């Protein structure tokens, strides 16, 4: 067969059908198998990269929810602050590790302030009122960031450089592995903290029944405040770690909060491992949808899957069914 016409044939085939059927066909075509395999691997890597980011944001949601039943829509702003403060301290000549540490400290203080000034005074308000308060907080934090910082995008250097790790024709950046490992590490630390320490027990008690916790002598204000602070710190760490991949700007928080919230609910709210599972799965859905279906509709596919999962499991993947007493 003459090379040129064959080439044109393949070419027109590929350009005319980038739909699922064709892709599946390619998957089973043996001559194309290595390429198809590489694609599959790359989609997986991409999903893990993005999913790790979502997971790290989602973990932050979980702790605050556990302690106070508040879904904190300002969680994305914690991530933004972590990244942006580090970036701007870096510009001011502060060495990177120190800058990151300061950023985490500042964000922690912001988290504590959010609880003390915003959440605690409204402690008996309804869930939706709380959501609006946290949304107000997120608008405020974004507004302050746009004044203090600027409106451009910024990046941070990756921890282990930007030379990709190549596996079977696909590649992943070392930073993605760092983010994924950090998400897992943070979840493990969180679980250890909750299960092994007195403080952790107090968190469980507070979340189970705040009144009873107060009665047995737990200072629930301190506990919930601590949870906000820790969540903020987790958000800030996430911000420092994901900025080399996602870049950052004063308004990255909104989208991260949206995706993080979706990931949390997919996993089942209130469960730290569920948050990681939800985040990684959400990332994978998006990547495979982008790869095998349509990049334009990948977010749509992700949400359709979330809806389907919730219809089948109304408490999320890892969520536990609660028995309401009457």
């Amino acid at each position, binding site marked *: 067969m003459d090379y040129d016409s064959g080439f044109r044939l393949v070419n027109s085939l590929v350009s005319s059908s980038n739909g699922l059927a064709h892709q599946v066909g390619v998957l089973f075509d043996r001559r194309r198998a290595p390429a198809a395999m590489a694609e599959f691997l790359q989609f997986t890597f991409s999903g893990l990269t993005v999913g790790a980011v979502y997971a790290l944001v989602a973990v932050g949601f979980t702790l605050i929810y556990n302690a106070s039943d508040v879904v904190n829509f300002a969680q994305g702003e914690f991530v933004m602050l972590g990244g942006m403060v580090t970036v701007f301290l870096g510009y001011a000549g502060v060495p990177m590790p120190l800058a990151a540490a300061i950023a985490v400290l500042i964000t922690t203080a912001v988290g504590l302030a959010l609880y003390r000034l915003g959440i605690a005074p*409204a402690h008996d*308000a309804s869930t939706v009122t709380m959501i*609006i308060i946290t949304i107000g907080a997120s608008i405020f934090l*974004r507004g302050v960031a746009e004044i203090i910082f600027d409106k451009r995008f910024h990046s941070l250097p990756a921890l282990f450089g930007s030379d990709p790790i190549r596996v079977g024709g696909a590649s992943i950046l070392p930073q993605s592995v760092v983010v994924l490992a950090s998400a897992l590490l943070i979840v493990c630390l969180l679980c250890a903290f909750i299960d092994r320490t007195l403080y952790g027990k107090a968190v469980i008690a507070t979340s189970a029944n705040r009144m009873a916790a107060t009665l047995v002598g737990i200072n629930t204000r301190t506990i919930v405040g601590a949870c906000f602070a820790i969540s903020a710190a987790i958000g800030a760490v996430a911000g420092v770690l994901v900025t080399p991949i996602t870049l950052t700007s004063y308004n990255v928080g909104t989208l991260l909060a949206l995706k993080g*919230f979706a990931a949390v609910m997919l996993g089942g709210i209130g469960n730290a491992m569920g948050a990681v599972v939800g985040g990684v799965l959400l990332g994978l859905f998006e990547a495979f949808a982008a790869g095998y279906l349509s990049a334009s509709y990948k977010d*749509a596919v992700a949400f*359709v899957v979330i809806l389907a999962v919730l219809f089948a499991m*109304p408490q999320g993947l890892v969520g536990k069914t609660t028995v309401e007493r009457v």
Partner: protein
Amino acid sequence: MLAEADRFRLLQHHRLFPLIPLAVIIVVLPLLFPSAYYYRVAALVFIFAIAALGLNLLMGFAGQVSLGHAGFMGVGAYAVAIGPSRLGIAPLLAFALGAACSAVLAFVVGRPILRLKGHYLAVATLGFGVLLTIVFTNEAKWTGGPDGMPVQQIIIINWTVHRIGTWYWILAASFLLSAVIALNLIDSPTGRALRAIHDSERAARVLGIEVAQKKLAVFVISAVYASVAGSFFALINGYVTPDASSFLRSIELVAMVVLGGMGSIVGSVVGSAVLVILPQALTVFHEYEHAILGLTLMAVMIFLRRGIVPSLSAALGGTYK
């Protein structure tokens, strides 16, 4: 013979009583308007008030959260944009078709979605809204894509509705009508059932209330409210972009309901007035406007946590809803 005071009390208990002060304000307000700009702001207040009213029926009365209601606004908005220009349907008919589409859509997705509770319901409705926005953004052949598309003006028998002053009266009347229907519903068997569901689904069920069916009904009604608001929104702007249905718009609607007061019909218009007017007022602060907007939102919710109207009403010792 009823004493004067008794007669007033009877009037006060009439379900439509809360609308009397609103109607007076609506009539008097234009006398104070120095320019068309004020008409436009007021028109936007009415539009968002209609959407917030519908959402309030769902959230404030039936107790079901929706973080995707702007999606229905989008359906209404694109109906009046696409209908006349792409399908040759008369604008008024497109308006009605939009509402019908929203109702059908709400009916279809409502059944599975409303089985979810609390934050799971929140994320499912959010996902639904995001899906619609993605469709509006991607189906450029129909919707003009992310840049949006122009909307033809409404023509009623050779009379083009163009001036914003005209829109003011149309929208004021539509808003009042929406409020009347909402108040009708609240003071009816269905309304009582919905409010019961809000407080205890179990108790409502053992009293014989078809909870799923009632939730679905109010979801459809609130979708139609949002759709109507969306159609008006597109018409007075003469232009529509996918922003009409965005996640942030949905959040804005929820904020209007909560800010004004869940379960308060007057609250919905107050909430939408605050969130439409505040950004206009805050432009004085230039780059500080967002920080101040966020702070205001937080402060109002912390100090008037039941919402502006119920909290102020309670503080003044009244029972105005």
